[in-house]
Structure formats: C-alpha cells, structure tokens
C-alpha cells in the first residue's frame, strides 16, 4: 500500500482529503503543521507528500525547501496545494522544489490523477 503524507492545518480539509485518499486505497499519514510534517516525512518515509502552503509558523515553501535539501527526503515527490491562484504562487512552488502544484478547493479527480502520475514516474 502506498503511503501519502498529508500536511494540512485545516482539520476539515485534512479529514476529508485523508478519508478520500484512503477510499482510493492509499495509506495516509496526517501532519497538522510543518514541523510535524518534516518529522513524519523522515520517520514514515511516505511515497508522496501533499503539502498545504499556508501553514502556521513554518509555511509550506519552507518545509518543501527543507525536505528537498535533505538527502533522506529529497526523492519524495511533493504536490503543493494552495488557495491562491496567482501566477507567482505557481512559480514559487516550482522554485521551492515542488514536483507539482494544485489549487484548493481540490478537485479530487484531478488531484488523484496527479498523484497517480507522480507515483508511476517514481516506480519507473
């Protein structure tokens, strides 16, 4: 079973996304802030990380940069999730090292396609 780490501070979104992902057959690990996300990324070694960008204290950009800078976690694909639709956010996501990007509210079909893509690439 493939493991997804979901870093999301909003409880409802976390609950909903994790349940839907689980229904798709993924095992989901939840982190409600960046620091926990960092720890869990190391300890749980997930196959993919869904990263909310607007997090309290340490934001998603920062967490992504740290994860990508660490040799033990840099290979894990990260999909950034943000409510902002500005072009700069998109550029910022790739700059920080995200492998893909999606906006909230999540269109689940689209997101799961992206997840599937990245996991397939990784398998190859």
């Amino acid at each position, binding site marked *: 079973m493939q493991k997804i780490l979901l870093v999301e501070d*909003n409880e*409802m*979104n976390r609950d*909903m*996304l994790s*349940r*839907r992902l689980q*229904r798709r057959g993924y095992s989901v690990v939840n982190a409600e802030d960046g620091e926990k996300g960092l720890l869990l990324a190391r300890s749980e070694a997930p196959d993919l990380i869904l990263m909310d960008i*607007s997090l309290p204290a340490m934001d998603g950009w920062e967490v992504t940069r740290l994860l990508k800078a660490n040799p033990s976690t840099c290979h894990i694909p990260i999909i950034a999730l943000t*409510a*902002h*639709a*500005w*072009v700069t956010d*998109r*550029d910022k996501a*790739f700059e920080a090292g995200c492998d*893909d*990007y*999606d*906006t*909230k*509210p*999540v*269109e*689940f*079909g*689209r997101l799961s*396609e*992206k997840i599937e893509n990245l996991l397939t690439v990784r398998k190859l």
Partner: protein
Amino acid sequence: MILQNLSIKRKLTLITMLTSSLALILSSVSFLIYDLVSFRHLLTQDLMTQAEIIGYNSAGALEFKDEAAATATLSALTAKEDIVTAVLYRPDGKIFAHYFRGSTTLPSYLPSRLQDKGYRYVGGYLEVFHDVTLNGERVGTLFLQSNMRQWSMRARRYASILIVFVLVSGLFAFFVSSRLQGLISNPILHLEDTMRMVSTNKNYAVRAVKSYGDEIGRLIDGFNTMLSEIQQRDTALQSTNGELKTRTQELEEEIFHRKQTQEELLNAKHAAEEANRAKSTFLANMSHELRTPLNAIIGYSEMLEEETRDSGKIENVQDLRKIQASGKHLLSLINDVLDLSKIEAGKMVLHLESFEVSQVIEEMVTTLQPAAAKNGNSIHVHLADNVNMMRADITKVRQILFNLLSNACKFTDHGTVSVNVEQIKTADRDWIQFQVRDTGIGISAKQKENLFQEFAQADASIARKYGGTGLGLAITHRFVQLMKGRIWVESEPSQGAVFTVRLPAQVVTETSESAQPESAGKAPAASSETKTGLETILVIDDDPSVRDLMTRFLTKLDFHVVAAANGEEGIRLARQVRPLLITLDVVMPDCDGWTVLNRLKSDSQLAKIPVIMVTVVDNEAMGLDLGASNYLIKPVDRDRLAVLVEKHRVTRSSTITDDNPVPLSYVADRPAGSKTAGTRVSRTRRN
C-alpha cells in the same frame, strides 16, 4: 585746425566777416592805388608845365646871361610849396641860377650831371629836366625837384580813411553776420539740442521744430521721420516686452499649477495604487477564505455521494449532487471575479506556447459534450486544412472556447452548435479564426451593446432562467484583447448567434514585440529568447522574397524571425536582439556578406553567435575561414537548413538547462464548473 573746431555760429560769423572785409579792403586798396597813381601823374604834368613856363621865362636871361633875372624868375616858385629845388644849367652843364626852398646852400642831392629831359622819381622826389630853348636853339637846362608833399598827404589821408572805413564796415559786417548766421546755425543747433535730449532722456516723443524749407529743414524733417519710426518701434517693442512679461508670468503660473496638479495626480496615483494593492490583497485573501469552506463543502459532498452510492441510498445522491453543483457554481463565480480583478490589476500574464489547434478543439468539444447533450444539442466541428499549430496562451484559448461553447449550448435548445476554425491571412499577419455558431435564442441589437461588459447579462430574466455570472463574455473579451485579437458577434433574436474570435497565429507579448535595449548587455544565451520563449533567428538578405521564404520556413520551425535587408541593419539588429543564430547572404549592395561576417566575428559580444552563410557564391572555404559555422548554397536545401538550426537550438537549450531549469508551463485551476479536459493540470517541457 582751431578754426575747424569752432562752433558753426563762429565759423559763419568769421566767414562772413573775413569775406566782406577782404572784399572791401581789396576794392578800397585798388581804388586808392588808382587814385594815387593818377594824382601822381597829374602832379607830374603840372610840374612839367611849370618847367616849361619857367624855361620860357628864363630863356632870355640865359641868352643874355642875366643871372639876376633868372634868379628872380626862379624865385617866383616860392608860391609853389611842393617845389623844393629849381636849377638852371647852362649848356655846358654849369649852374646858372638856382632856387632852394628854405635854404641858400646847394643841397647835396643835386644830380651831379645833367640828365636827359623828362621826369623821374628818385628817393621820394619827383625830378624834371627841361631843355630851355630860344628860337629853336638850346640855351640851357632847367631842373625842378618836387617833394610830392601833396601826394603823400593825400596818400596818408586816404589810408586813414580806408582804415577807419574798413574797421567800421568790419564792425558792421560782424554785427550783420552775427544776426544773420542764426538763419543757418539756429536750426542746426536746435537739431543738435533735440538729438542730445533724445539720446540723454531716451525720449523719442520730442521733435525738432522745422523753421525753414531749406536743406536743414529737410534734414530736420528726415530726423523727425526717423524719430517717429524709432518711437513706433520703441512702442511696439515695449508692448511686446510687456506681453512677453505677462506671458512669462502666465507661463510661470501655469507651470506652478501644473506642478501642483502633477503632484496631486501623483498623490492620487499613489493612493489609487495603494487602494489597488489593498484590493488585490483583499481579493486574494477573500478567495482564500471563501475557498477553504468551499473546499470542505465540495469535498465532503463528493465524498458523501460516493459513500451514499456505495451504501445503496440512491435517493440522497441527487441532493448531494445539488450541494456539489451549487458549491462549484459558487467557486466558478469566485474564480471569474478573481480573473477579472487580475486582468484589471494588470496581473494577468500570458504564458505563450505552441500547440495543435485541433487538439484544443477536440478537448473542448469532448468537455462540452455533456452540456450540449443536456439541452439536446449536437456539436459539429469543421477544421480547415490550413490550420495546424498556433502560438498563444493555451489556457486562455481554452477558456475563451469553453465560454463561447458553453454559452452556445446553454442558450440553444435542441439545436446545433457548430465550431468553424480556419487560418486567415491579412496584410500584417496570420490569424486563427474560431467561429462558434448556434441556433439558439439569439441576441437583440440592444443586448449586443453591453454584451462584453462585466455583470451585464443580456437580460435580467436570462440570469434567472439560465444562471451564470455574466462575467464569461467579459473575461473572454479581455483575454482576446490580451492576446491582441478581436471578438465580435452577429445575431438576431431567435435566429441564433455567431461569435467570432480572431487571434494572431503567433501571439507575442508587448515585451517581445519590441526588442529591449537593456537586454543588449546580457549574455547572448539569455537575450535571444524572448518572453514568448521563442528563439530568435536573424536573416540578413537583400532579396525580399528570400527574406519572406526564410521567415516563413523558420517560423514554422517555431523560431522568432527578425529580417534585415542590408548588412548595416543586420549588424544593428544582431546587437539589439542577440539572435540564436544568423543566416547571411554574400552578394548584397553596399556592405557585402564577407564584410558583415568579418564585423560580426570581430565584435566580442556578437562573435559567439553562429552564422550560417546562405548564398549563391560557391566559396565555402572563405566563409569558414572568416568564422561562419555552416555554408549553404542557394537554392537552399530546406531539410539541411532545418537540421542545422535545430542543432543550434539543441546546443543552446542544453546550456540553459544547466544553470537555469527550463520553466514549466502550467495550467491553473480553470474552470472548476465541470469536469473538463481543459482544467487538467498538465506539465510540459518547452522545446
């Protein structure tokens, strides 16, 4: 010299006096001389007559040697005061008798010997010798001497009179000339005074008074005319000066006002910018705040729908779908508002890429098939043969087509929606034209007016019946404008509508259209790639048909082409756009290809740009020696050219990837209203 500097007044007096005195003196002296000469002549005649008489009277006495009688005769001369000496000589020259006035002794000045008869003037005396004859025989000589006392007295008297006369007349002349010189000198002096007044006081209003109609009068007239003219000019000058001063003042005031206005405007602009920033921030935050709960609503309802369906409670599925649909509608509203605000804030940026037009059309038709089916419509597509690639912002093209097609489907009931795509050529560029035709309710002329305005649905009742934000066409319109295209509509009520969108086949952004001078200093690798992402190739050829062919060919290969008609222009453009590579002709007027190549290669900033020679001249060795990368002989083998330019592009791209990852083009979350291919996030690599 002193005379010359005298005043005119003095000069005139002096001249008059001198002239008149000289004339007077001359005439008087000549008269005097004439008078004295004739008087002396008279005296001489008189003395000679006297001598004749005395000679006659004393002839007998001489004959008879009667001295006493002779002396007595001579003594009669006492009556004659002038005669100072009278002597009778005998023929042998001895003195016979004599008479001396006032003395008895023989005066020393007696002539020593007898002279010939006649008269002469000697030492202020008049002397006369007269032969005394008797019966025709000379018996002696008479000598008479006169002291001319009468004559000298007369001369003295005359001289005195003359002097007095000259003096008196001189005085008179002085008096008269001093009076009369004013006739000439006064006007001149007056003129001089006037002149001095004008030059000292700068008063051009004074005038010299004309006294007489002579030359001076005319001079004064001339002077006055001159003054009038100067005065006129002075007045004109002064009024112009005044005007100028007033104007300057006005201008200064205006400048001040403008500065003030400018400052106010600047402040207003800052305020507006500040407000706009606040608005943008507010919108960004709002969209975030709105999306988060929407996220939950849509997400949970979707999840519940899945779960409900799994558990077999089909009756709840419809309600859950309604929640979902409303949530998505709300989301599309938020997205539309956000799009518009982005356009208005100037934050909407074009992400240009090349894509297959047919693919996009196919995607859109597939996406909208459900919407069409909902109203019982069928979609027909006609794609012209000449349409293949276009370069534009694919997301926005998708959104434009989505909006037009979904509108067509929405407002048509059991009809046909047809999409017609073709390539159109106008004088300046190629266009891709999308035409969406429906058989729906149509649009009235009045409705057309506001069709592309924000929140202006054709009719309020329409909004109730068909839903929608009224932003779709406004956004479509803005997107088309952003890509420098055109959109228009032809429709009659209940006759259906035809929306036509014409977009450039090669959309360019403002920045790539005009080469930016600041990029000139950068490394060539960075500057030839315009913001559109296209690599630039510079074509230098004097033949317009070759330029045209090359431009078309290279554009098809997805290059941005800049063409130059001569060497100079070519070098200038090379500096300006820093192309990926240059194709260069050899035979050109003025500056031939060899020279251009030489200059390109000797310029440190341009030397690195590869040059492909494209020419009829068969001299590959020369080209390669001068630094050309490749040598093609006309007519050009297109396949070979394509391979060569691609090779250079590959070389360049690998350089880019090394130090700067190629940006990923990305399609944002558009539109969320339905499950569409257009909303799928895709990740593609350029080139």
